[in-house]
């Protein structure tokens, strides 16, 4: 999952980025409304964590602009204002969820997973494909109830494929959602992860569609 974090407090932004990365998410952080608009126009994110009080305006403006251009990316508002009226206004503006500062990092991660699950139309927290099960909350994978140790990136690639089984995912698309801007994309890494996954879970699981990308083979 790739998240856009819009927060102007450097310490908090750094903490959220580090914490969500540990939870298996890819985080891009910006501090201004203008940067958020640019990032949203340029990249597809799975969810946006949006602070309300930003140096060059209100997070609600960013949100309103997103919804106005039919961008349905789930948005979670972060704010230090705790008046009910503020929450109502935020939600009515098109936000999907709301967290008051200070918050619990685990709760933030859980809410983001819930948002992603809901936007993907899934009811079950676990991702399943035949005998394969992924738990996004603990980054644990199992095949026929036998735990399979996966690295963070391997888990991310596999969960992206499992979110929409049968749909071909382009390599660039996988790469985009795997790496934040600050991270350098090494060439052929997606191939390396797919190779590792095939080694751990069996060769027949991930199918290469030559020249297009990858998809999960029906179980």
């Amino acid at each position, binding site marked *: 999952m790739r998240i856009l974090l819009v927060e102007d407090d450097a310490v908090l932004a750094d903490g959220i980025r580090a914490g969500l990365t*540990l939870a298996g998410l890819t985080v891009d952080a910006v*501090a201004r409304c203008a940067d958020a608009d640019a990032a949203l126009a340029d990249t597809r994110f799975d969810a946006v964590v949006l602070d309300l009080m930003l140096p*060059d305006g209100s997070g609600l403006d960013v949100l309103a602009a997103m919804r106005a251009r039919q961008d349905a990316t789930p948005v979670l508002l972060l704010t230090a204002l705790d008046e009910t009226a503020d929450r109502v206004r935020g939600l009515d503006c098109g936000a999907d969820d709301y967290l008051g*500062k200070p918050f619990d*990092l685990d709760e933030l991660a859980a809410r983001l997973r819930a948002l992603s699950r809901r936007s993907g139309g899934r009811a079950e927290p676990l991702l399943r494909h035949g005998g394969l099960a992924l738990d996004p909350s603990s980054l644990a994978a199992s095949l026929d109830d036998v735990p399979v140790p996966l690295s963070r990136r391997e888990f991310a690639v596999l969960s992206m494929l499992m979110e929409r089984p049968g749909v071909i995912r382009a390599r660039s698309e996988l790469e985009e959602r795997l790496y934040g801007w600050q991270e350098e994309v090494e060439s052929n890494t997606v191939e390396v992860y797919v190779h590792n996954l095939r080694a751990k879970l069996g060769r027949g699981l991930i199918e290469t569609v030559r020249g297009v990308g990858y998809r999960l083979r029906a179980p």
Partner: protein
Amino acid sequence: MSSLRRRLFLILLTATGLIWLSAVAWIGLVSRSELEHVLDTRLQEAARMVHSLVMAGDGAAAAFPETEPALAGSYERQLSCQVWSFDGRLIARSSGAPASEMASDREGFADREVNGETWRVYTIVDAQKGIRVVVGDRVGLRDRLVLDLIAGLAVPAVLVLPLLGLLIWWSLGQGLRPLRRVAADIAARDGEDMRPVTPEGAPSEIRPLIGALDGLFAKVEAARRHERDITAFAAHELRTPLAGLKTQAQVALAAPDDGTRQQALKQILLSVDRTSRLVRQLLALARLDSGSPGRIEEVRIGDALREVVDAMPHRSDVAVDIDPALDDALRALDREALQLLLRNLHENAVQHAREGGRVRWSLAGDGRSLIVEDDGPGIADDEMELVRQRFYRGKGARVSAGTGLGLSISDQSAARLGAKLHLGNRADARGLRVEIRFPPGPPGHG
């Protein structure tokens, strides 16, 4: 406790009493002179009457046979009459008249002392008949007459006075009822109720008081709203760094590697420093808001500035220049407010100075202006006034560089010193120029 009702009651009662007393005195005086006149005329009349009855040469002592003495204390037989011959014989006297001589040698009215009593007498001397006719009455009786008259007036008045007092007391209570109503209205309020007191039906005398109360209520309400705003802002501003601290602490706890943990701990230290600065500034603002002025003393500006600069953890890459002329600048002012002002302006300047930049403090305008310049990005013209507001951070400022309180505190400290703060971008180079203009007046000797 002084009571308006008791005070008015005493005033009214005393005034009424005084008026009554003067009325009694006046009536006493007037009726006395009237009485004297009437009684004197009667004396004269009686003397003439007796005189006309006495025949010439008639020396008969039987003309007025002695009768029993006058009943003491009654107004009857007030008049006494004596007829004397020129050779000093008492020819006749009325009953009750003293035997000793009442007459004087002169004709007309006289006051005479007879047997220890004062008499008012009228004498007719008739040389032809060789007699003197004297008619008199006792002055004591006249006095009693006047006293009885006054008593007749005063007794009912004294009896009515308590009744009048009660009436006044009750009327005052009625008259002061609007005041009590307003008082009850205010007393019934809770501490939150700052609505204006309704002047409906309030008498014009207490309107000024109600107006003053309403003014005070409005001021208290404004002060409280201001305080609430500040508290809400402060809560908001403190929550973000708290959220940062909590998040970083959780990262440090969950970090699988030392690098991540070290980074999180460093961020925590950074955040604690910044938060404590924020708290310090909030306290400074609260102190400034509370408005209690500090002690005025002679301060050498240069010394105060060096103290502030030395006490501050500064960026090692930023050079600080202090004009030597500042060491000669002496001013009598509130030292605490000055230090607050200098610290916040210096902090602001150092924070915004460019890397390897310079902050310069200098004196200008005949030593009346203190100037600080940095070489940072400056402030956009449309934000020049906004930056003085609390918690406003310039759009051009580095992300979360400051608390947004520094210039607001500076502004208020300057006001406390009677000085004005002028913000502007430097004309000679990039950067902000803040001028503290002190009021004209003796800059102190030095």
